[in-house]
């Protein structure tokens, strides 16, 4: 279980301290959890704090009861926290096979690579020796990024806006991948997303607003409010 205790994060912007996250308290069980909210609400910051990429100004992070607040990115990765970037990182000379082997923590053969890539709808034959560079499309990079996280068999797998920057076709495939992960993956899946179809897979939804948790609840509890069910839209409300 992942537990965030009183997490706050401040950043400097043009000489002024801005509070990005304010006193976040959250317990995340081994479930598929989606964190959503408007742009600038602190979703990605929260994900990066869990992965160790950013250090909170205040607060504690516990993984299975153990305080990991002072652990480095590497230490957290080795403890079982995986992180998929919103914009997958590109490399010169490092191939898909290299990255999947690093992710798996051992050298992998073609049949293993085939299994890993087929999980995300890619054929190993076409990708195994491709470099992780600009020759791959956004959708391909996203799927390879997800394959890396799956190869790690992490306790906590974090995906920062996996839908960002991909076309509709790739998005449909992405949804299938996450639906499959939801069915099969043990542990916590933490997804930062704005997408209704991704939120609809989640067991639990965390709604962030202005750096604070506004609501936490099951999909059935949160989605109607998010989608405005039972309430008129703003244009209509203004006219009533």
């Amino acid at each position, binding site marked *: 279980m992942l537990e965030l205790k009183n997490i706050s994060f401040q950043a400097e912007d043009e000489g002024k301290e801005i509070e990005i996250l304010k006193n976040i308290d959250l317990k995340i069980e081994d479930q598929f959890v989606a964190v959503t909210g408007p742009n600038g609400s602190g979703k990605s910051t929260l994900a990066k704090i869990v992965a160790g990429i950013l250090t909170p100004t205040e607060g504690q992070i516990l993984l299975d009861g153990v305080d990991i607040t002072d652990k480095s*990115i590497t230490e957290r990765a080795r403890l079982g926290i*995986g992180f998929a*970037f919103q914009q997958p990182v590109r490399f*010169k*000379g*490092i191939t898909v096979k290299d*990255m999947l082997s690093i992710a798996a923590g051992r050298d992998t053969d073609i049949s293993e690579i085939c299994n890993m890539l087929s999980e995300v709808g890619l054929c190993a034959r076409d990708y195994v020796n491709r470099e992780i560079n600009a020759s791959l499309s956004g959708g391909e990079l996203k799927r390879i990024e997800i394959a890396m996280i799956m190869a790690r068999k992490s306790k906590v797998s974090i995906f920062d806006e996996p839908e960002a920057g991909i076309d509709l076709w790739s998005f449909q495939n992405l949804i299938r991948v996450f639906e499959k992960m939801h069915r099969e993956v043990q542990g916590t899946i933490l997804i930062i997303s704005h997408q209704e179809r991704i939120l609809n897979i989640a067991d639990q939804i965390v709604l962030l607003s202005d750096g604070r948790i506004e609501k936490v609840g099951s999909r059935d509890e949160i989605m109607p409010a998010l989608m405005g069910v039972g309430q008129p839209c703003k244009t209509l409300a203004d006219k009533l």
Partner: protein
Amino acid sequence: MDAIQQELLAQVAGLHEVPEGAYNIRANGEMAGRNTTANIDIITKEDRSGIDIRIKPGTKAESVHIPVVLSQSGLKESVYNDFFVGEDCDVTIIAGCGIHNGGAAASEHSGIHRFFVEKNAKVRYVEKHYGSGDGSGERIMNPTTEIHLAQGASLEMETVQIKGIDSTSRVTRAQVAEEASLVIKEKIMTHGKQHAETDFTVNMAGAGSSVDLISRSVAKDDSSQLFRSRIVGNASCHGHSECDAIIMDQASVSAIPELTANHIDANLIHEAAIGKIAGEQLIKLMTLGLTEKEAEEQIVRGFLK
């Protein structure tokens, strides 16, 4: 050959035993082994140190190994090797030089290689430079490569210097005729106080000729590198040079490209990028469980692969 020389040979030419096909192995300034084939002859020069390699027209799928190893501290040599590649050949030439210096005096090898590649012949040329030994004497390597490509000929040169060379000045000159193509892929890593200079001049003289110069380098510690390329388009041709360097620690890298078009249909491009390892690349690999140092090594290894 002793164990040190055998190790150098393995490093520069991948040789753990006597190679198949033609070869000429030079150790400490003397011939240590030679073999010729029905199609490839190797002749010792009489006027100066070096060999002529003559490859008969139409020779296909054959290779020549001509590695040089130096393990005697203080030895300085200049070697002149000329390659005459006949029409319609398709061959691989593996060169390379390894210097082991366990003494205080500088060891230096200057290899001057000239290639005369006839019509429609195809050559893959691999050249690897490597240094070892814990002596205080410098390990100096100054290769000069002169390439003449006849009509429709092609040469692909892979040159690698990954470790142990204190100082190198690498000069390449090429003349590229009609429909001929030249590809050069260079990989260099310097560390400590090493210095590496690369100087390419390619003259595209014939219509439909092309050149692609790709240099990837990593400069670590207090080392320095200079990449200089000149591409001259004298006909309808395509020229591209790319210098991509990772700079680390207190190292310095300079890239000086020069393009000259003397023909309206000469299409010449230069790209240069010098920078440190991107922070996001390190972070990505760290999220996969590597330490920062391991991530750095992985990025460098991939970059120079």
